[in-house]
């Protein structure tokens, strides 16, 4: 059931594009994409924790240069990305993953533990000088995600990748691991247009499956509007839920603060879909 690893060319310098040919991917390797503010991080963090509770070993990937995923997982934002320690700067050439370190070592040693057996891998956060101070981490991150398929043990893991707003990272090869994308769409024109664009990239050059999640839905009309603006059927409906706003204000995970809330129950439905489609794919 584990696909054979294939040899890889040396990863290109960031942020040069990578070839978009699909690589072997695990059945539960997921990216979460959509417009800014659609609820990607809350959904990603809650989904990662839920999959952990179901007995999967989970890698949560935070590739947003802006703060996001940690709080939704229920952990504080790390001060600096652990991946810096796994990076080296050769005399000639850019930062890279230290030689001898592969994706599995990164996942074991350079990730932050979260509850329910989840581990969080971070790209690094941008400050006033952009990502330059954490370039080592960024390049080590890209080396890691582009070699994810080389680690046979990881095929048994679930991966939940929380992406920054818009299609940029999909287009630039930041998510070669994603077998399927959860496309998060609010009932607005801008969110739906982003959803269409992301889905087109995912199904086309990235060769991935798409699961549409209608987000912040408070009426049947809003769900219908998402489907009309998208031109697609919605797979799962995430209700507008005060529990999310309350948890965010307190900087805690909604799955800890309100485990019975409508949004957590909706994420459980999403986890069902992911498990089911993952089984069909393998």
């Amino acid at each position, binding site marked *: 059931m584990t696909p054979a690893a294939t040899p890889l060319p040396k990863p290109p310098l960031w*942020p*040069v*594009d990578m070839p*978009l040919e699909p690589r072997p991917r695990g059945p539960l390797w997921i990216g979460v994409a959509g*417009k*800014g*503010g*659609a609820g990607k*991080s809350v959904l990603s963090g809650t989904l990662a924790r839920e999959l952990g509770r179901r007995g999967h070993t989970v890698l949560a990937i935070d590739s*947003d*240069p*802006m*703060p*996001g995923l940690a709080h939704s997982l229920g952990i504080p934002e790390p001060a600096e990305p652990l991946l810096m320690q796994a990076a080296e700067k050769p005399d000639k050439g850019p930062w890279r993953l230290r030689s001898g370190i592969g994706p599995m070592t990164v996942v074991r040693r350079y990730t932050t533990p979260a509850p329910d057996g989840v581990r969080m891998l971070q790209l690094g956060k*941008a*400050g*006033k*000088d*952009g*990502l330059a101070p954490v370039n080592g981490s960024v390049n080590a991150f890209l080396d890691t995600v582009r070699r994810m398929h080389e680690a046979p043990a990881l095929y048994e893991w679930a991966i939940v990748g929380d992406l*920054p*707003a*818009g*299609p*940029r990272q*999909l*287009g*630039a090869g930041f998510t070669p691991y994603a077998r399927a994308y959860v496309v998060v769409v609010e*009932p*607005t*024109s*801008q969110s739906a*247009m*982003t959803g269409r*664009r*992301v889905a*087109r*990239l995912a199904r*086309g*050059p990235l060769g991935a499956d798409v699961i549409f999640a209608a987000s912040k839905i408070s009426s049947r009309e809003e769900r219908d*509007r998402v489907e009309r*603006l998208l031109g697609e059927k919605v797979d799962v409906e995430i209700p507008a839920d005060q529990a999310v*706003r309350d948890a*965010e*204000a307190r*900087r805690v995970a909604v799955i800890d603060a309100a485990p019975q809330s409508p949004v957590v129950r909706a994420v459980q439905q999403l986890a069902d879909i992911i498990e089911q489609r993952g089984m069909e794919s393998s």
Partner: protein
Amino acid sequence: MKIAVAGKGGAGKTTISGTLARALARAGHDVMAIDADVNPMLGISLGLGMDDTERLAGIRQELSGSRADDVIHEHTIEGLIERFGEDAPDGVRVVVASRVDMPDHGCLCCGVSADRLLREMEAGGRTVLGDLEAGIGVLTRMETGSLDVVLVVANPTPKSIEVARRAVEAAAAREIPVLVVANRITGDADLEAIRSVLGDCDMAVVPEDPVIARADAEGIAPIDLDERSPGVRAILEISDRLTAVPA
């Protein structure tokens, strides 16, 4: 004058940019709106509608067209803007720097980027308004003095305020003046949440407005839906405020 609009995804950058561009044009300015987001949607809030917005070409992709007979010979920023600019209502011109939703979207770091357009284009007598990509990436690639003002859009949520704080810091490091736009404000507690992090800065307040929400739901420009709604009026006031200061 060169203006850029930054903030967290979903904070309202595009809605404020589009409405502000229309307001500035109505006040007699020659407005060039630059959609500097690789997920370009400024056309919607300028009033072009979803379909026409989807049809706007990105300069980068057009320039990196792979067929030899497609090569476009334009060597100047002005030439590119002239060629790719499209008309929007009230005499606004709009141009999309780059879009990353096509199978062949070109290289993200080579050729004409949103960063370069904003840095290098001369405002001349125009008012240039750049709607930036979510986060602070483009802002951190600007040089000192390449913009006259950055509008940092902040919603009263912890994450949005944190991104705004980083944007303000990035602008300050480049000596670019900042106007914070507190958006979707429902009361004093919201403003206090933003002020407690951003401190004593220049701030404009745009109230929560069902008209703007409905415009976004339907894909039309808020200024076309109801120009007297509280949110749209607040953005018109930002236009007055920006133009009261000599460029």
